[in-house]
């Protein structure tokens, strides 16, 4: 069983985004497993790539759908995405500079992402989209 369980805490109520979030959890669990079994370095590179494409795709999809439905907190949400992306960029730079410390910084970043973004900020748009009939 992976480190993180996909439980209803992370559910936002919109199927396609819930699936995306499950994917993020899967990346995190995979990464953690790799760290535990000592294949850290290789996995970090892979994970960073995965996260890169994930953020591009998922954030864009979220923002597009929310803009389509005139989500009132859209700007705030976009800013949150921006913050994650910039921190992510920092981490990527750090990786090239000192790969050793990456492990913990990366995990910390990912957990914070789940807690402060997926669990809280994304939840807000869940009800909004549901009220527009999107599940």
């Amino acid at each position, binding site marked *: 069983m992976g*480190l*993180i*369980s996909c439980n*209803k805490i992370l559910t936002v109520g919109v199927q396609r985004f819930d699936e995306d979030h499950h994917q993020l959890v899967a990346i995190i669990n995979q990464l*953690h497993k790799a760290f535990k079994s000592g294949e850290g370095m290789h996995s970090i590179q892979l994970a960073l790539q995965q996260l890169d494409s994930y953020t591009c795709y998922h954030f864009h999809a979220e923002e597009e759908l929310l803009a389509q439905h005139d989500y009132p907190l859209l700007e705030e949400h976009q800013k949150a995405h921006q913050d994650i992306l910039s921190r992510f960029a920092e981490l990527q730079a750090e990786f090239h500079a000192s790969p050793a410390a990456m492990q*913990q910084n990366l995990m*910390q970043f990912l957990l*914070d992402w*789940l807690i402060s973004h997926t*669990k809280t900020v994304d939840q807000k748009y869940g009800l909004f989209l549901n009220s527009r009939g999107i599940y």
Partner: protein
Amino acid sequence: MNRTMLTYLANISIRRKLMLLIMLTCGLVLMATTCIFVIKEANDIISTQRKDLASLADILSKNVASSVTFDDPQSALDTMSSLTVKTDIIAAYILRSDATIFSRYIAANAKTKDVPFEQLDQNSPPADFQKVLKQIQLSSHQFLQLSERFSMVAPIQLDGQTIGTIVLFADLHELKSRLLSTLISAILVLSLAAAAAYLLSVRLQTIISLPILNLVDTMRSVSETKDFSLRADTPGSDEIGQLYDSFNEMLQEIEERNLVLRQRQEHLQELAHFDTLTRLPNRVLFHDRLQQAMNLALRSNQLIAVIFIDLDRFKDINDTLGHRTGDLLLQQVADRMELVLRDCDTVARLGGDEFTIFVQDIRSQKNACKVAQKLLDLFEIPYCLDGQQIFVTCSIGITIFPDDGETIDTLLMNADIAMYHAKADGKNAFRLFNPEMNQQASERVALQTDLRKALDLNQLQLMYQPKFDAQTGVMIGVEALIRWQHPERGMIPPSRFIPLAEESGAIQAITEWVLSTACKQAKIWHESVNNAVSVAVNLSAYSLKRNKAPVMVQEALEETGLPPHLLELELTESMLIENDQHAEETLHDLKKLGISIAIDDFGTGYSSLSYLHRFPIDALKIDRSFVWNMNRSDSDLAIVVAIIAMAHSLKLTVVAEGVETEAQLASLKKNGCEIIQGYLLGKPTTAENIASNLQKKKSR
């Protein structure tokens, strides 16, 4: 009577009241008008009759005047025969001036028995006739004559002189029938009017009663369904309409108040069941859920793991970073723990830095351990608080239901015990509960209690282990070691009771006692032997953390008058590392007092050169494990050599602990170790023995 009447009236329905009102009013009015009408009619009829008779009498009297004058009864009779036309005339009498009958006319079908004149016969004296006449005259003047007959008296006059009287008797039958018909028609009209009024009133009273009944219905349905969102439709803006409006307003108020109350209720529920800081379930809710889970598990023969989590050194984090940061940390810890658990598991905050989890549906102890390991893995990841990166670990205790306890209290208690073992074993670990722990736990509690008294009961003793100069073999100092002579359990080693003392804080008093005793002893040796024999005392982490060391030492020195250079404090390497911020300052303060400082168990921690350089220390004591292995393992030998070299480069003296063989001694000497301590050269012994050894040496 009046009372019951009023009550009755008050209790009949509003419909009936209104109709009663309307009908009563109508009734009275109708009655009044009908009566007036009937009376007027009656009056008319009677007076018409009277007038009629009066004029008839008048005419007759004029017509029969000549007959009377000429005493011609027959002509009078002829005149009176015309009376047959008038059907109501019963009899007519023409009387002479003396009241005797001159002529009479009797109608065909009349009953003459009761006509007063018929009761008199021809030969009655005139006085009788006069009497009868007078009676008739009297009665005829009454207005309302209720007898069967009506009588009219009129004088017969000729040239102004009364020559006789005419008396007419009329039947009242016709009058009566006319009156009756008037009355009947009046009653008929009255009834019809009343009926019409009734029908109208039935309709009209609904103007008032219907809105009222509507309101009553609405109110009743509100009471029954408790639905305070119902409103009644105002029928108009009259007083009833205002009543409606008032009710609607009242319902609005109730509805709003209900909403507020409901919200408050929900909030209270939340407060009662959830921890306000982390928003995790609190103890109460945890109990509930666990109880339910236990019931379910019993039925389906499943296991539940109860996991107790205590954050390591949370108090230190709170002290150094502040309570606000501490709270932030707790929140983040709670958030992360929620992520690694399944939906059917519950994590709760019991208070402080203690959390507890129950995991349902586990198949074995091993699975429970996997969960605990997940948690430990989770805690490897640092937290970012106020821009600082903080590492926190935890100690975990695990119990299994129903194996380790059948009630919640037992399970939690045992999990706590297991957690404590994890802490004692070095923290950042998990331990499964086993029944021996219980035994150990109660023992621990007993020992702690005893320890508190041990000092007062003089159960603590100091032993001294001598330290020798490696080259000369001279005893240059001793290390003070504490022993506890427990009345029942015997000699308890410091490794057993010092951690307990640290936990309860009793270590403070103990250290003070040790310092005082050791300094006193050293003073005695100093005065008696005049050799520089220093005494080394072990400092506790507790005292170091709480900055009590400098004050303690100063007091001990002042109290005993020992020259400071004869006192040495030993701190373990790990103590230094864990408390480096405090330590630096404290050590400088201690150095100012003139004592020397040694690092104990050196090599077991992971300090670096530059790190050591910060601290004002005088000696390093190589941990006994390296000494023990130095001749067996090249790496350990290398470590010993390296430590000595490093110490010398920092101008520190090296003490080797646990030297037990000549070979070790030789090796250490070769490599420049200055001081030797160990069983080979001297076991820990009493102060007296040390004193006598010193004497021996002196005398040599």
